[in-house]
């Protein structure tokens, strides 16, 4: 999202999630928060996973949450991964982010976090 030009990490993650049997809709680089929210809405996503390395997470992530809310889709859990300081992570979770994961999170753990987020939604 935004001006972030990194997509290696997100592609590795997408592959890992797909290997775990999930359908991953890759929205591509340089998306606006609005585009991400619309994609989640139309795809009826179980989870929105955002990878951010640009440092702009405190603007972009709340923006995504805001757009999801506007579209009546705030029940879709949002998971964030990237280089995110602890204080920011706390604040993001307070704003409603399901989980924040830092670099070096094992893929296995990442898969189970996404699974937990998805199943929380299907139960509700």
């Amino acid at each position, binding site marked *: 999202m935004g001006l972030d030009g990194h997509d290696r990490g997100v592609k590795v993650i*997408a*592959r890992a*999630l*797909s*290997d*775990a*049997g*999930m*359908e*991953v*809709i*890759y*929205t*591509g*680089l340089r*998306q*606006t928060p*609005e*585009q991400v929210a*619309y*994609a989640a*809405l*139309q*795809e*009826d996503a179980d989870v929105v996973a955002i990878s951010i390395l640009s440092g702009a997470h405190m603007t972009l992530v709340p923006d995504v949450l805001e757009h999801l809310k506007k*579209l*009546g*889709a705030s029940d879709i859990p949002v998971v964030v991964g990237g280089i995110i300081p602890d204080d920011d992570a706390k604040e993001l979770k307070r704003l409603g982010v399901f989980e924040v994961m830092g670099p070096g999170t094992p893929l296995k753990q990442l898969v189970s976090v996404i699974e937990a987020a998805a199943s929380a939604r299907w139960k509700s």
Partner: protein
Amino acid sequence: MSDELSTLLERFKTRDTRALARIITLAERSADFSERLLDALGEQTHRRAHVIGVTGAPGVGKSTLIDKLVLKFREKGKSVGVIAIDPSSVFSGGAVLGDRSRMNRLSVDPQVFIRSFGTAGELGGLSRGARDAIKILRAFGKDVIIVETTGTGQNEVDVALYVHTSVVVTMPGLGDDLQLMEAGFPEIGDVFVLNKSDLAGSDASYAELKNMVQLRYAERAWKPRVIKTVGVSAQGVDELLRALEEHYDHLVSSGELSLRENAGFRKEVEEIIKERLEHELKRYLENRFSEQSVNHNPYKVAKSLLGEFTKLLKV
């Protein structure tokens, strides 16, 4: 009718995108849901709409071309649904679906609805979920529905049964004419597109393609259009749009539209029966195979198991 379905349908009628998206998901998950849904929607799934299939080998630029085409339809005030199908893994059932990333600008337009699908184990043709999505989008009131599939030979034949107009996309250098002859030149195209026609060798490729189409479709009432495009700059997309409209008009005036829809319906009934049988058979075999030891004659074993299975089906 379940409460969930009736609440969703109320919202669906008010053009609620969230309800549309959810209904597509539930239909993909369960054939029983689809059956109840189609009962409730009735004639609405036959609303007037132009269903367009776009197929071609990976990398020829289908998604980018569709992106530009949808913009043209929007300029004409048409609402559009896009069903983008990418292969799923046969092993995990998972998939990375990337078509959408080439159409993202479109998706903030409330009149455009894009939905991604994995092939879900389907080798040719359309998965049940994708077939139902066409009907649901029609009932929702979309004027144009575009179905993008990756075709590498004959599997587009089955897709063609579920759409009104089939667009086959290729690009320069994707095989000389001998390959076109041998490797199953698509016999279902209504419009042929040579995309990336700014690449070297495009004139020769275009001439070849045109030749091939003239040869193969000489006896048909509709002579497929062959169009050069450059997806990234939208070159030739106006012409493509005109060809699509001409073909639709032809289908209506010749009466072929209802013939196609009838053929599609029959094929779909056949598919549903096959899918159910396959499901039952798998369940049956799972139990029986554990008792069956390896034998030198698979034909004999198959015959006896089939006999038992069909007896079970009758009760």
